[in-house]
């Protein structure tokens, strides 16, 4: 195709040093800038709330990294964020933008509770594999619905995944009120899971072994994207579905597969959190962590290792803002605002770097 009325299309390739500087700026400089701007915005809000930014951030830092217990909480908090962030990244790679993480997470938690409470007796050794499979399957189903709707019918996945989130939420609401309800509880919640079902913790800490699942998932997903045929096909499909189809790559199959994987990861995240730190099903489970995971994925530039760093940052921010709300009466929502400001800064800064060619 000739675009005859545009300037010479072949932009001369950049000298290697310039492009190395550019990629360094994007990988390190931009995230640092984003953190700085985000914290500055948070600082403004803290001042507005009548607090002292220095004090507030000190509290937050302490809450995140202040000691072993804090680090433990940080790691446990990171686990679902990493898993769901990876799920988002895998789906996005095929051009499938799902915001269904919350629904996958919720359904995973529901499944874990249901399975464990319905087993009359057992051990962790039996429970965990069964829960893992069923929770992953449940999450995959939900994710798969959105995927199939998009791939076969062209239905916008943002709207379908969001509506499914609400449907799962109301299923959760019903589950804790009726079938799984705790007869002795006051608020709608399920019974506590039996002790044998709870995830083991690393001796000497309160970090449950679910953390290892997240740790293992990172290189696994990196390998998936880089060195498998599915990873290769995902990229093609995401960049140009028409070229993919023309060369025999099934866009539908690739998209649905990525949706299934994404859903499964979310389901596993929910199950891990239930068996590892929540121990009972309640409405509080559906806390918006799904959206937070998307924030993590965006900040981490959809790169597995970036997602880990972003998860640490966001988890620390969440813990910190909760602490600050407890001790200094500064609303915890500043954490959300800071996260949003960080993403917006990343988007803007990357754009500026791109344009400075």
């Amino acid at each position, binding site marked *: 195709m000739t675009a005859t*009325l*545009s300037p010479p299309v072949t932009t001369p390739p950049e000298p290697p040093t310039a492009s190395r500087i550019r990629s360094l700026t994007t990988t390190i400089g931009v995230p640092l800038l984003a953190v700085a701007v985000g914290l500055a915005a948070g600082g403004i*809000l803290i001042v*507005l*709330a009548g607090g002292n930014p220095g004090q507030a951030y000190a509290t937050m830092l302490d809450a995140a990294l202040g000691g072993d217990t804090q680090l433990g909480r940080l790691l446990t908090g990171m686990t679902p964020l990493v898993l769901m962030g990876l799920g988002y990244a895998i789906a996005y790679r095929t051009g499938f*933008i799902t*915001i269904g993480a919350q629904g996958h997470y919720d359904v995973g938690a529901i499944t874990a509770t249901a399975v464990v409470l319905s087993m009359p007796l057992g051990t962790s050794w039996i429970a965990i594999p069964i829960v893992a499979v069923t929770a992953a399957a449940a999450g995959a189903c939900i994710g798969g619905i959105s995927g199939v*709707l998009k791939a076969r*019918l*062209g*239905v*916008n996945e*943002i*709207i*379908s995944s*969001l*509506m*499914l989130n*609400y*449907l799962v939420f*109301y*299923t959760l*609401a*019903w589950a804790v*009120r*009726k079938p799984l309800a705790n007869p002795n509880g006051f608020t709608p919640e399920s019974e506590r899971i039996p002790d044998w079902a709870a995830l083991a913790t690393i001796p000497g800490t309160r970090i449950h072994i679910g953390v290892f699942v997240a740790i293992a998932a990172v290189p696994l997903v990196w390998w998936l994207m880089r060195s498998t045929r599915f990873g290769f096909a995902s990229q093609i499909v995401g960049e140009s579905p028409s070229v993919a189809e023309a060369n025999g790559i099934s866009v539908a199959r690739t998209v649905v597969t990525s949706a299934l994987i994404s859903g499964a990861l979310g389901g596993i995240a929910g199950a891990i959190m239930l068996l590892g730190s929540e121990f009972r099903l309640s409405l509080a489970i559906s806390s918006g962590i799904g*959206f937070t995971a*998307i*924030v993590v994925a*965006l900040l981490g530039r959809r790169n597995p290792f970036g997602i880990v760093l972003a998860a640490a940052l966001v988890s620390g921010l969440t813990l910190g803002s909760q602490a600050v709300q407890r001790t200094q*009466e500064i*609303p915890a*929502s*500043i*954490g*959300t*605002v800071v*996260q*949003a*400001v960080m*993403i*917006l800064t990343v*988007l*803007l800064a990357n*754009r*500026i770097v791109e344009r400075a060619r």
Partner: protein
Amino acid sequence: MNWSNVLGAGALVPLFTAALRLAVPIVLAAAGACLAERSGLMNLGIEGQMMVGAIIAFVTVYYTGQPMLGAVTGAAAGLVIAAIVGYLTITMAVDQIITGISVVILGTGLASFLYLQVFGMTGTPPRIQGTTPLDLPVLSDLPVLGPIVFSQSPLVYLALALVVALWWVLTRTAFGLSIRAAGESPEAADSVGVSVPRTRWSTLLISGAAAGMAGALVIDSLGFFQDGITGGRGWIALGVVILARWNPLGAIAGGFMFGLVDAFQLRVQAASGGQATSVPYELFQAMPYAVTLLAVIATTVWFSRSNSPKALGIPFVPAK
């Protein structure tokens, strides 16, 4: 429970009246979004704009007692948040979807923060008085239609009038022509001197203001504020845009359908008195979302998205 309380002859008119009232915020937000999407811009941040509009309107009405003023300040707040989306997506040509999602997070957080700032963490949540329904002379005496359409709050009339105005602008003005061109073939529009960025800025700000005002309408209807008060209406509005096939007048029908389901499920909950019914009431609570999903699927399949603006979601960089 007594179903005739919900669906009986005497209950239908109140049902439909409530339906229209509940529908209007979505209709308004969707109509604004229609314009933005017709110009090629996906304003996914609507939920965030609605949230901020809601809190600003709430504070305004709480302190001034003027619901109309609340609608105006709510619209202004929505407009400001939309400006953030505009700067990123139009001026800097950043991806519209991610920007929208981020702005929703931002708006939700800001709204929550503002609420706590102004009202603190008190025991009894503050409430405002909503607008009282205004019976239009003559019209409100019509059978059936009278009470349903012409005995609504002045804000509802305002919103519906705005929706019609938006339709008129889109289809009967030169600006509307530019909007449609910007969304179908931005290069063609650019080549005849239409400023695609400026057109998109205009529609985006309109959409933000509409969303903000919609938030004010929600507050007016409910009388209080809490986190998540908009309940996903912003997202539903985006679904309604698809249902309406990008026509503001169509948004009235699409939004009304949602309002009807919403009104229905509220009445079911009230009628059952919170007691156990054979069908769990969560099913009814979930109905609006299920119906929206099914409706979007149906519209997408039967009309095969051929109506969606061709340049939707694609950033446009004017050839310099």
